[in-house]
C-alpha cells in the first residue's frame, strides 16, 4: 500500500502503469510527463515511491533521479525503461535507484519490483 508518483513522457505508458497499479492496493497520487514536472510533483506530493521513465524530454530520468535523491536521499525510485542497457541501468542503480522495470510492462513483474523496492530499508 503505497502512494506512487508516475513520471513518464508517454501518456500511453502512464495509463498502462496506472491500470496495473490501480488493480493493486497502491494509489497513484500523481503523474508527470517530464523530469522537470516530475521533480516539482515529487516535492509537492512526497510519494512513497516514484516510477521514473529514462527517455524523456526536458529533463531525462537519470538527471531527475539525481535531483529527487538530492531532495530526499532515501526516496524510493524505480526506473522504467525500454533500454535494457547495462551501463544505463548501472548508472541509475549506482546513483541510488531501488530497481528497474523494462518496457513493455508485465503486470506481475511491475508489482513484484515495486513490492521489493518498498521492502528495501
Amino acid at each position, binding site marked *: 500500500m503505497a502512494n506512487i508518483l508516475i513520471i513518464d513522457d508517454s501518456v500511453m505508458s502512464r495509463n498502462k502503469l496506472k491500470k496495473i497499479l490501480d488493480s493493486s492496493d497502491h494509489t497513484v497520487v500523481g503523474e508527470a510527463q517530464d523530469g522537470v514536472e516530475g521533480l516539482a510533483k515529487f516535492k509537492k506530493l512526497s510519494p512513497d515511491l516514484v516510477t521514473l521513465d529514462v527517455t524523456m524530454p526536458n529533463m531525462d530520468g537519470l538527471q531527475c533521479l*539525481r535531483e529527487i535523491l538530492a531532495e530526499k536521499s532515501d526516496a524510493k525510485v524505480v526506473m522504467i525503461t525500454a533500454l535494457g542497457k*547495462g551501463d544505463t541501468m*548501472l548508472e541509475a542503480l549506482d546513483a541510488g535507484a531501488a*530497481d528497474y522495470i523494462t*518496457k513493455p510492462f508485465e503486470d506481475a513483474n511491475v508489482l513484484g519490483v515495486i513490492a521489493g523496492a518498498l521492502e528495501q530499508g
Partner: protein
Amino acid sequence: MFNKYFGNYILSRKIFNIEQIKSVLAKQQAARPKLGVLAIESGYLTAFQVDRVHRLQVLHDKRFGELAIAEGYLDERQLEELLNKQKTSQVLLGQILVDEGLLTYDGYESLLKDYKKDSGFSDLEIDILKRSHADEVVNLFVKEDGTGPVVELFKEYVELFIRNLVRFIDSDVILDWAYSVANYESEGMAVQEIVGDHRIETGLAGQDEVLVRFASIYAGETLSSLDDLAKDALGEFMNSQNGLFVSNLYHKNINCNLNPQHFMNRTNIRQRGRLYVLPCQLSFGKITIIFNR
C-alpha cells in the same frame, strides 16, 4: 540469432535479484580498462594529470572524459579515440555470471536453453523472414553500396522490427522490397533519433487510418483518429523497438542512446549516408519503416 539478446534477456526477465545484477553489471564495467590508464598509454595525459582528474571526480559528479576536456588535457577527438579503445575489451556476460558464482556451467547452459526457447525467433517469425526474403533484400543493399556494416545493422533492425510487429501488433506481416532514396516524404511519422556510436534517424510512417489502427492495437484502446494518444502510442512503439535495438548493440560493445521520440506531421526526410525505406504489409494496411544513417 544465438546469444544476440542474451544480455537483454538477463536484465529484463529479472532472473537474478537486484544486488546480483548490480554486481554483475559492475564487474562487466570494471572489466574494461580505465580511461586514465588508456590516456597514459596513449601519451595524452601524464600520471599526475590522471590523478588530478580522479581527485576532481570525487568533488564533481562528472565523467573522466568530461573533466579531462575541461582541464584542457584532452580534445574531443582524443577522448573519442580513448572511448573506442575502451570498448574493444569485452568480457562475456556468461563468463562473469560463472566467475561470480551465480551460475554453474550447467546452470549457464540451461539458462541459455530457456532463453532460446523464450527469445528465439518463433516458427511464425522465421516464416515471415523467409517469405519476405529479408536476406535477399539485404544482399541487394550490399551490392548497391558495399557498406556491409550499415547493411548488417539495418538487417538487425528489421529482424527486431518484425519480432515486435508479430508480438504486439499483427502476426500477418509481409515485407516488401526495401529501397534507398534521397528524400522521403510522409503525411505523418513517428520518429526517434538513435545517438552515440551510430547516429540513426528511425521512423514509422503510414496513412492516418493505418497508423490509428496500429496505435489502437498497441495502446490496447480503441482510438478513432490520429490524436495525441495515438501519436504517443506510435512513438512509444518506436521507443520500445529502439530501446531493444540499442541494448543489443550495447551488449556488442557499441554504445548508443535514444533521444525522446516525437511525431511529425507532413515531413520530408533527407538522406544522410543512406536513407532506407522498407514498406511492410500488415493485415490492415501498409506501414513504412524508415532507417536513415
